């Protein structure tokens, strides 16, 4: 397809704008949809499948429990825990077998941050070899679900 002014003048621009507006109208709305329908399923089945990393600190557990309690209140669902080690739980999350992973600590440069979505850091810890932070982790692309969890994590962080 070549682009010449005679063929694609102002008419082409107005058509393009028209298509763009139609596209926007089709997609307008406040919240995105989850490609795999995570949030809808959680609201319908009232179950959140949570992978819990074993051996985490009590302080971290207190932090993520506060966030999870807010998510429970917001969705009307209860968590069903699957205990395990961090990486196998993240693989299950990536495969859609879990909705969240809690209790995991991550380095700022963790390679996992492209494969899964790390929520805002809820507790940072300085160690002699670097900084790690506790994150609630969600599956990539489940944007409505991620927005809800991140909103509640932020709100929990502001609680006294």
């Amino acid at each position, binding site marked *: *397809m*070549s*682009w*010449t*002014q005679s063929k694609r003048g102002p008419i082409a*621009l107005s058509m*393009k704008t028209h*298509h*763009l507006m139609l*596209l*926007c109208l*089709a*997609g307008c*709305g*406040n*919240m*995105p*949809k*989850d*490609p795999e*329908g995570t949030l809808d399923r959680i609201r319908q089945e009232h179950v959140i499948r949570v992978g819990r990393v074993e051996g985490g600190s009590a302080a971290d557990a207190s932090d993520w429990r506060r966030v999870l309690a807010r998510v429970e209140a917001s969705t009307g669902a209860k968590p069903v825990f699957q205990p395990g080690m961090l990486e196998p739980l993240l693989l299950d999350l990536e495969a859609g077998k879990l909705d969240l992973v809690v209790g995991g600590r991550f380095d700022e440069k963790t390679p996992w941050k*492209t494969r899964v*979505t790390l929520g805002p850091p809820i507790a940072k810890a300085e160690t002699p070899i670097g900084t790690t932070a506790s994150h609630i982790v969600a*599956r*990539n*692309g*489940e*944007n409505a679900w*991620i*927005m809800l969890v*991140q*909103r509640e994590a*932020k709100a929990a962080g502001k609680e006294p």
Partner: protein
Amino acid sequence: MRRAERLEWWSIAWTISVIVVMGAAMGSSQTMKTAWIEDCLSLIPPAVFLISARVERRPANARFPNGFARVPSLAFVIAATALTALGSTLLVDSAMSLVSQEHATVAAVHIFGKEIWLGWIMVAAQVYSIVVPVVLGWLKLPLAKQLNDKTLFTDAMTQKANWMTGIAGIGGVIGIRLGYWWADAVAAGLISLDILNDGIRALRAASAELVDGAPRALDSDDIAEDASALHAVLDARFPGAEIHLRETGRVISAQIVGATPPDDTLDVRDYWPGDPDRAWRLGHISFVPPRSDRGDVPGN
């Protein structure tokens, strides 16, 4: 030419503003990242045009006795290569996103205490990234045709690639909003095929120019119309001679093999068919007299 140079300076400034805006809104989206890389690459054609325009004006010297008239040809190859690289990169990238079933995470940002889906910020940035190249492309096309400058023309095509990618990007973000994770990769893939097609076409014309092929049209690999008309005129005036036309930058050089100049001096404008205002296209005419060793001269 001065107007084209001014336009290219403006083009660089506006493109940098697009790069800044897109960079700020990109987040972790692969589509936005690809569009951002594309915006960065689109700086190459105007930069190459400006450099070549400057070098082209240099006078001939002992090391470059033929001057620098061919610099635009070199610039054209670079610009065409950039366009081809752009199309290939986008195609590979979108294919990989599709094959690996990448689900883009586009969450929320907080602006003035209000939660806004980052997708809408991306759409706003993409709209800006569309408006700028559409305006620049429209300004550049008539100039490219007037100057018969292929680098400028390729640059205008790169602008087209940019706004088309912007539209694909918006489609992709809206697709994410609707829960279709594959929408952006598919849209970007289709657009990249078109960009690649433009790039390959420009590269073929640029290669033809480098190997002294007959002058090509601005927007295709076909022989330029004015070159065909010139060939016909020279053929009629020098029957039996071979007419070799080639393009050096923006101008055509004609070599007439097997004929001698009709007069001691000649005005190349006399040979230009059509619009006299475009007679500058015919840079010079050279003659290769008939060779007696080849039997070109009757009686030998």
